[in-house]
């Protein structure tokens, strides 16, 4: 690598450290090495300053929060799961109801088919809305589970 090439690459350099060919050139060329070091030092100094004198804003903002509308999901994941469990339990319990047995006795087994259809459709609608409305959360959950492995 020539000094001119090094110079051009420095302008496109994104990370504050030299890699591969550039590092090799800097090792053998004190002038380019000094130039790169000056640039990185300048950036580091520019990034360093903190508004140290400014107060911690946390108490000020925390004090405001109770007066603001609380951010809520349309329906929280927990509520959905609770609704799902309730739906499941009611499906299991329906055949045990006295009314169900009464209907069954008068109309016979043909009655259970539309009944199962209605329940099936409601479960599908529930699951569909649940998945659509929680897509991002489910995706995050999946990502976290996969990355935890």
């Amino acid at each position, binding site marked *: 690598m020539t000094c001119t090439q090094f110079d051009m690459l420095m302008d496109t350099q994104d990370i504050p450290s030299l890699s591969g060919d550039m590092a090799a050139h800097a090792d053998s060329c004190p002038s380019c090495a000094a130039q790169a070091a000056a640039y990185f030092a*300048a950036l580091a100094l*520019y990034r360093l300053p903190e508004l140290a*004198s400014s107060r911690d804003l*946390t108490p000020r903002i925390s004090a405001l929060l109770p007066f603001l509308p609380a951010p809520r999901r349309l329906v929280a994941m*927990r509520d959905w799961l609770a609704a799902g469990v309730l739906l499941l339990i009611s499906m299991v319990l329906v055949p045990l109801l006295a009314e169900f047995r009464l209907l069954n006795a008068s109309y016979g087994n043909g009655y259970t088919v539309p009944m199962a259809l209605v329940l099936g459709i409601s479960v599908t609608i529930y699951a569909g809305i649940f998945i659509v409305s929680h897509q991002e959360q489910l995706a995050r959950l999946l990502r976290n589970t996969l990355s935890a492995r």
Partner: protein
Amino acid sequence: MSPLGPEATDTEIIERVLDGDRDAFAQLVRRYQRRVLRLGYGFCKDSDAAEDFAQDVFVKAYVGLAGFKGRSSFSTWLTRIAYNTGINAKRKAGRYEPLESEPQDVKNFSPEEEHIRMETVASLKRAMAALPEKYAVCLDLYFREGMKYGDISDATGFPVNTIKSHVFRAKHELRLALGAEGDGL
């Protein structure tokens, strides 16, 4: 709800806030107030106004938190709010500029360090002055906040290539200024 540890991810904290734990939001404020304050200072050039700016930004973030979809990182999403707040605000302070002098009690620089720092600020200031304000902020997001091109693009809505070309020119100018300094020594 059990308290979140200091190592909790932004996503975990956000889930908590959305589940109704208002206090968890403080952790996000603590984590990102420096960046928001620095941007506020660039827009307002005054510590009090920068604090009001930061408060405004965090309030918007809190109220709109359900709208955070996790497509970018929370810090990028928050930077977008700060950017829009700064660009849209009617300000007396004029246009966005890099932080020139720090408010008191900042780290003490050696004379050489202070000299290099001022040189950097001056050349970034020149680079920013040559650009419309909406792009000038991008230079600070890159040089000072160390954000990646893609994240700056997410935060400001400008194409990556536009940001890259402005950064490229500023970087060139900065390196020229530093080079000229070095030659003079």
